[in-house]
């Protein structure tokens, strides 16, 4: 319950706060609470991955991007588009439909949580899911090369030629 409040409060703070640095910190609160939820659901390995990847890597990446691009918080612009109210209505309707579907469904046997067996997970990851695993590593390599290429300064480009 506390974790749910952390997740949803953090998420709401992300989209409503005016200063984007505050939004990034609220995002870290949200991701940390999600890691707690994964641990509660009997998946500590997913919780550990969440802490490592989201709290560790992606949060720092986003904070660095904000530091590199924001010129200071002197005059913060209006945070929302004109279509803000419509967006709120649409997403509220979508959430209502999904929640209605989730609560109205009879989940049958799904009454208690089953903890993830770490050894079985490792075997599945490198046996049944070996090909996706390798494709993911290739994708990450491509992402690194693409990010370096995109974020390179144009001046270096001219000097190289």
């Amino acid at each position, binding site marked *: 319950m506390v974790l749910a409040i952390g997740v949803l409060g953090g998420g709401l703070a992300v989209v409503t706060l005016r200063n984007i640095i505050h939004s990034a910190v609220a995002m870290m609160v*949200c991701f940390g609470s999600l890691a707690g939820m994964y641990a509660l659901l009997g998946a500590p390995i*997913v919780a550990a991955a*969440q802490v490592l990847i989201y709290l560790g890597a992606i949060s720092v990446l986003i904070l660095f991007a904000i530091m590199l691009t924001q010129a200071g918080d002197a005059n913060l612009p209006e945070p*929302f588009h004109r279509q803000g109210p419509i967006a709120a209505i649409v*997403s509220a309707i*979508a959430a209502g439909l999904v929640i209605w579907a989730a609560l109205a469904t009879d989940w049958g046997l799904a009454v208690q949580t089953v903890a993830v067996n770490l050894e079985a997970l490792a075997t599945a990851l490198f046996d049944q*899911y070996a090909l996706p695993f390798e494709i993911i590593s290739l*994708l990450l390599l*491509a992402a690194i090369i693409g990010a370096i290429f995109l974020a390179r300064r144009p001046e270096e480009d001219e000097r190289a030629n």
Partner: protein
Amino acid sequence: MGIGAYLTVSALLFAIGAFGFMARRNAILMLICIELMLNAVNLSLVAFNAYQPGGALNGAVFSLMIMAVAAAEATVGLALVIAIIRTRQTAEVDQYDDLKE
């Protein structure tokens, strides 16, 4: 808490992310909102996996792979945003209107 409660939290988080993506004007914040939506999907996958009788592992494996893809997406997305901000000197997406003419 049953599976319905976890799915409710997941749906609400996804809606918050979708709202932020549609309503906010800052490009970096739109990327953060994409991360929120990916995390909402991850939460529902892990919840389905945990409540599945028989101890299947597909949900946990899928969520780990989604995290890797999300990391790749965040890297490339932030690099794109930094490149755009460097040329346009603004992070407001409604001023990226070069293709309008």
